[in-house]
């Protein structure tokens, strides 16, 4: 009833082509962003901010980057963890080796380095596709694991191979409390999400999608596969690299290569698949599902057990968490193979007709 577009007439191309053509959507998104910026820092406690929201925001950013490559350009990658690692370690080296390097510049340079590495590892995509490409990108993962464990220079000769950063500032703003960390991550995420959304609506995004849907046909109509694929790798790795740098700098502040292991690559790919391939919104859903759900189950199950007077041991909870999580993944993929984002848009379609469905 409320969600209906009757009477919203578009009289210009600009109005017709905007990101959220429906007024209600526009206001809802604006409201959510305003809520996230203004209300969440006031309402959320420290635990919620630093243990749930910050990881969620950073991994949503990483999933967004992976989605551009996997969902929009159709190039499966298992090297996302590696690009995160490259971003984090490059940013770290820029940050400590260059005197007076601003934090934001270090993060962006980390992203650029990741983009360069991404292009190199994107070269095989010109020859191989699908699962073979996935295996080829896995090489990036192993190389990164090896390099950051073995080459001492990258970790500034730290004896244990663990690096850490401190005294973070952005334009005189000291990134210290969980609220600061949250706001910085949120700001970066909003900017990148907006850029990504516009990019996939522009010429380059359409090229990616053409390559994804049928690369031979795309080539016939004049799209250069090399440019399209490599640019997808570059943009995706850039975003993933920035996310990696944020993960190291803002979330962990002291990390080792294990933080970006192959598990992370799989996790990101699953976020994209569960959230919805080829959907910006899907990256957020996927990240929420993978990051928040296990923690939620971990706390919800003992609480549920307490309700019926059952003391659940932490080990049982942990096992149950894995099982329920697995079942939910299967459930959602059966209900909607195109991911949670598709479920969301079906919901919106139904809402338009409600309460008088056909």
């Amino acid at each position, binding site marked *: 009833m409320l969600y209906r577009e009757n009477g919203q007439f578009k009289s210009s191309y600009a109005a017709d082509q905007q990101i959220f053509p429906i007024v209600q959507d526009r206001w809802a998104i604006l409201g959510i962003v305003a809520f996230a910026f203004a209300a969440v820092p006031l309402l959320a*406690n*420290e*635990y*919620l901010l*630093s*243990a*749930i929201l910050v*990881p969620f925001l950073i991994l949503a950013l990483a999933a967004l980057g992976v989605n551009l490559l996997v969902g929009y350009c159709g190039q499966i990658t298992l090297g996302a963890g590696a690009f995160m690692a490259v971003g984090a370690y490059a940013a770290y080296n820029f940050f*400590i080796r260059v005197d007076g390097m601003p934090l934001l510049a270090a993060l962006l340079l980390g992203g650029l380095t990741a983009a360069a590495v991404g292009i190199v590892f994107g070269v095989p995509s010109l020859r191989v596709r699908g699962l073979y490409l996935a295996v080829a990108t896995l090489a990036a993962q192993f190389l990164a694991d090896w390099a950051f*464990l073995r080459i001492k220079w990258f970790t500034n000769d730290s*004896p*244990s*191979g*663990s690096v*850490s950063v*401190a*005294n973070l500032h952005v334009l005189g703003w000291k990134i*210290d409390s969980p609220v600061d960390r949250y706001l910085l991550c949120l700001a970066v995420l909003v900017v990148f999400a907006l850029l990504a959304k516009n990019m996939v609506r522009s010429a380059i995004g359409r090229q990616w999608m053409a390559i994804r849907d049928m690369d031979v046909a795309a080539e016939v109509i004049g799209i250069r596969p090399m440019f399209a694929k490599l640019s997808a790798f570059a943009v995706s790795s850039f975003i993933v690299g920035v996310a990696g740098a944020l993960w190291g700098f803002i*979330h*962990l*502040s*002291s*990390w*080792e290569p*294990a*933080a970006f*292991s192959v598990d992370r690559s799989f996790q990101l790919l699953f976020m994209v698949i569960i959230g919805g391939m080829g959907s910006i919104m899907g990256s957020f859903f996927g990240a929420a599902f993978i990051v*928040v759900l296990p*923690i*939620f189950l*971990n*706390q*919800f199950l003992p*609480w549920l057990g307490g309700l019926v007077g059952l003391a659940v*041991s*932490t*080990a049982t*909870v*942990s*096992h149950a968490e894995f099982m329920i999580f697995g079942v939910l993944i299967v459930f959602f993929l059966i*209900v909607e193979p195109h991911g949670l984002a598709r*479920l969301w848009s*079906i*919901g919106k379609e*139904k809402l338009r007709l409600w309460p008088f469905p056909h």
Partner: protein
Amino acid sequence: MRIRKLALATSMAVLGLSTVLTAPAALAQAKEQFFPVLSYRTGAYGPNGAPWANGYVDYLKYINAKGGINGVKISFEECEFGYATDRGVECYERLKSKHGGGTAVHPLSTGVTFALTEKVPVDKIPLVTAGYGRSESQNGAVFTWNFPLLGTYWMAADVLIQHIGKKEGGLDKLKGKKIALVYHDSPYGKEPIALLQERARMHGFEVMLLPVAHPGVEQKATWLQIRQNRPDYVLLWGWGVMNSTSIKEAQATGYPREKMYGVWWSGAEPDVKDVGDGAKGYNALAKQHGAEPNAKIVKDIQATLHAKGQGTGPKEEVGQVLYMRGMIAAMLTVEGVKKAQERYGKGKWMSGEQVRWGLENLNLDQKTLDGLGFAGVMRPVQTSCLDHMGSAWARIHTWNGSKWEFTSDWYQADEKVIRPMVMLASGRYAEEKKITPRTPEQCKQ
């Protein structure tokens, strides 16, 4: 229809989440000393993490059964993190401010220790890493909040080299020998390298570094290298399934187990039990205690908790190596609280800052330890601002096929070797982090 149900389920879940997340901070009763317990009973390291957690929790229960810390009851909550660094940090964040704030936190993971080192000074909770953690944190002037009580990896490696030197008939006899380090490829496994290289430079032996990737079940290539190079000794720096795999591989390669020395993380029952006779002769460092089924405190816990069915974990486990380690970790923290109470008021609740002072001024002489039931288990511990470790003594125990037996005298790690390394590394850390080390005057406060 389906959509509606889904929407209903989602909103229920969100509702549940919000209740769960806002539930803490509920009713505030008489102040209890709250111990956050980060544990891992599942995953690749679960078999080793569980006995540690059982020992830790049992000791807290035991203190409660005896009336608390000078009357202050202990409360605790466990959080399972499966040895994953990010989940460990999440657990810490979840528990740190409950019930007025945590007393002290034991991460039992070097990765989590590194991550929390940056966080605890802000939250004002002591980070106790009894026998592990970062070696340079021994210098309490820089690492105000870290307490690697009873030893670090540098100290462990030092004692092992001393022992090997003694077996060879003097440290000078190590010249030209080859010592391999088979290590878990993580900050934990890499910690001893710096000390081994320093010792190698002093005595002229050669160090072979053989990393093993997490979780450590794939070691064929590593042991092939050992077969080819035939090192005189193998030091094992593993954890969880990696340990038993190493010993099995040594058996398969025909490498004598008598020449293998594990750090304390590689010297407990779960590591050798499955290998049984194949592990006979395998040695490990005992950071003070080994398996102590006959200690008075073990008997007490059996009688107070396990006999009444209030114990944590299986009864047979009480007194095993890792169980003891958890128990001693808890004991040291409780003693830290007691010490703090001496200064800030007996029978009162102690804040993290006060407990920190207590841990820094810990002074457990043999009489106190005997009184606590730890006679024969450990030696006196005395900490200070410059020495957050408190004791550098250790001994070696050997698996005889059915149980761990002590096979060496006590060794003390060489201060002359370790101290300069600690000062250098902690100085570098202070410089990087722009920390001004505390002066002796500031330490007294």
